[in-house]
């Protein structure tokens, strides 16, 4: 399955290079929007989105760079939105935390934790009602599972037998507060298993393993209309918001990070690729992606800001 590995690696590499490009330029203060970076989460974004059809829909949080790039494969409108330009995904009005790509299936992202989750179940309900066979995948962090509306949404999805996959990207933190300080229970999957849904877990940083798990989960849900819950662990490399590491703050240890870095999603997939294709081919596809990101950044910087009248447009249909 060489092609799958190549595609997964390309997606992850595009996410990583886009994030690096943001890191390179952020201090220039031209991207005036808070950045919640996807470094470390690439295997989940790539693996799950690869398992979805193009017509399937996804929803995400303020930390959606990874899933945006994985679902759309594009970075032009992405960077334009970061720079606040009219060619951005929301003409600059949304910023990093509210990325959208309705034509590619990314129908909502939200900064208020968990507030997009009920929207996902409504979207899945409509898909089931009209019989279009579309799947909805909603991405959220472990912090979102503290919120009541997550449980309301899970309950309703299981009751109504909705074609939806709940993807929990668990980095053990809600901003800086670890789960042991937030949870009056031991294992979330034990609780979720009590609902009428199928639960899958992985701590892998191998995008192909995640792809296989997601494919299995999605397949069962398509057939049975039992929602799927994917509990996927990853390590957030950078600070909660911003483009730097923050181990000096003391709430996490660099040693722990280094263990995860050792199995970095890109490192893992690159090694697998080198067993299948020549190094030159890998370097070439990487260079193409580096060039693509560079072009997107340049295009964005040259694009105009929205005109002032845009402020009050589209408040009402």
């Amino acid at each position: 399955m060489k092609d799958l590995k190549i595609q997964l690696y390309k997606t992850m590499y595009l996410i990583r290079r886009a994030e690096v490009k943001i890191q390179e330029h952020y201090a220039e203060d031209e991207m005036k929007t808070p950045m919640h970076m996807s470094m470390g989460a690439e295997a989940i974004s790539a693996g799950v989105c690869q398992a979805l059809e193009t017509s399937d829909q996804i929803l995400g949080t303020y930390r959606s760079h990874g899933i945006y790039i994985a679902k759309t494969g594009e970075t032009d409108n992405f960077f334009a939105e970061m720079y606040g330009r009219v060619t951005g995904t929301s003409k600059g009005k949304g910023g990093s935390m509210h990325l959208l790509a309705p034509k590619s299936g990314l129908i909502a992202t939200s900064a208020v934790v968990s507030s997009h989750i009920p929207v996902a179940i409504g979207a899945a309900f409509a898909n089931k009602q009209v019989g279009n066979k579309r799947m909805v995948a909603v991405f959220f962090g472990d912090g979102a599972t503290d919120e009541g509306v997550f449980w309301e949404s899970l309950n309703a999805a299981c009751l109504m037998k909705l074609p939806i996959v709940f993807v929990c990207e668990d980095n053990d933190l809600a901003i800086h507060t670890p789960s042991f300080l937030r949870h009056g229970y031991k294992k979330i999957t034990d609780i979720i298993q009590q609902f009428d849904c199928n639960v899958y877990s992985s701590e892998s940083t191998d995008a192909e393993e995640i792809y296989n798990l997601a494919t299995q989960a999605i397949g069962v849900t398509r057939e049975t209309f039992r929602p799927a819950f994917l509990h996927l662990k990853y390590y957030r490399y950078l600070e909660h918001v911003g483009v730097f590491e923050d181990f000096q703050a003391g709430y996490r240890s660099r040693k722990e990070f280094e263990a995860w870095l050792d199995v970095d999603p890109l490192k893992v997939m690159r090694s697998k690729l080198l067993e299948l294709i020549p190094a030159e081919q890998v370097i070439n596809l990487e260079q193409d992606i580096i060039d693509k990101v560079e072009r997107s950044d340049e295009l964005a910087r040259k694009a105009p800001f929205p005109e002032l009248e845009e402020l009050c447009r589209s408040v009402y249909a």
Partner: protein
Amino acid sequence: MNRVISYREALNEAIKHEMRIDPRVFVYGIDVADHKRTFGSNLGIVEEFGPARCFSTPLSEDAMTGFGLGAAINGLRPIHVHIRVDFMILAMNQLTNMISSYSYATCGQLKVPIVIRAVIGRGWGQSWQHSKTLHSWFAHIPGLKVVMPARPIDAAGMLISAIRDNNPVIFLEHRWLYDVTGEVPEQVDAIPLDGCEVLKEGNDATVAAVSWMTVEAIKAAEILEKHGVSIEVIDIRSISPFDSATVIESVKKTGHLVVADYDWLHCGFSAEVASTIYDSCMEHLKSPVSRMGFAPTHCPCTRPLENLFYPTAQDIIRIMEIKLGLPGIDLSGEEFYSYGNKFKGPF
């Protein structure tokens, strides 16, 4: 061809009419499909259209509101029903942070054609959690439309418009209006969601009323007429967008305005109306704009105090006496509306 039907029946007919012509419309909410059907407004819907298009939900107002947004994004036209606006507050995050800004976020690419119906106002000794209106909260947020029909014809025509509108519409229905009858055409036309209606013409003063207060205003106008005072009664109907033109035109004629709101006064919709009038036709005012609404407290259960909490026709009459320099009218022979004596119509 007109017939006389109740507000409840008018709502019910409008919903069924739209559900028949548009398969995307569906009704959902807590208890909408039980044997009581939201005070009867949802009778016959599940029987005619099936449980996929009319269903009761878990007690999850927050999630079920977001659910409506998701369904609307994907092409359906949800009608979410709350038996009390006081419970709808659990949905404020979805209303304010998700629904109201969704069209804006997508630069108009995607729309949110959701109607959210809620019952408001005075019940029966139900105290502070079954008593409110909150239209100023919803009207405050750009992106939401807020309407409060008082007459059966408006209940039907505005609900049809609300269902057809591609914007989120909050549709507030006063509990005591449910039994009120009025003339409604066999073929109801959609009534736009942005106009006031002059219910009664007059020359001496204007009352611009919201929801149940239109009933109280008409009662006050009838009594004042017996004493030679002619009051113009305007049914505001649409809170957001608000049609100030009709109220301005009336104030230019009469010079006196009482805003009879059904809500608290502090930071309430009545302040918005007053401010708009001062901005637009200050020179036509012969007295400051008067505002009336709930007492600045919480609605109590005990009847004598509950009676004082809500504004009434008597309050309108007493304000008019002050504004117009009238002698105190003897109201001892008059019958006013109360829980035991509700206005039945026809309007």
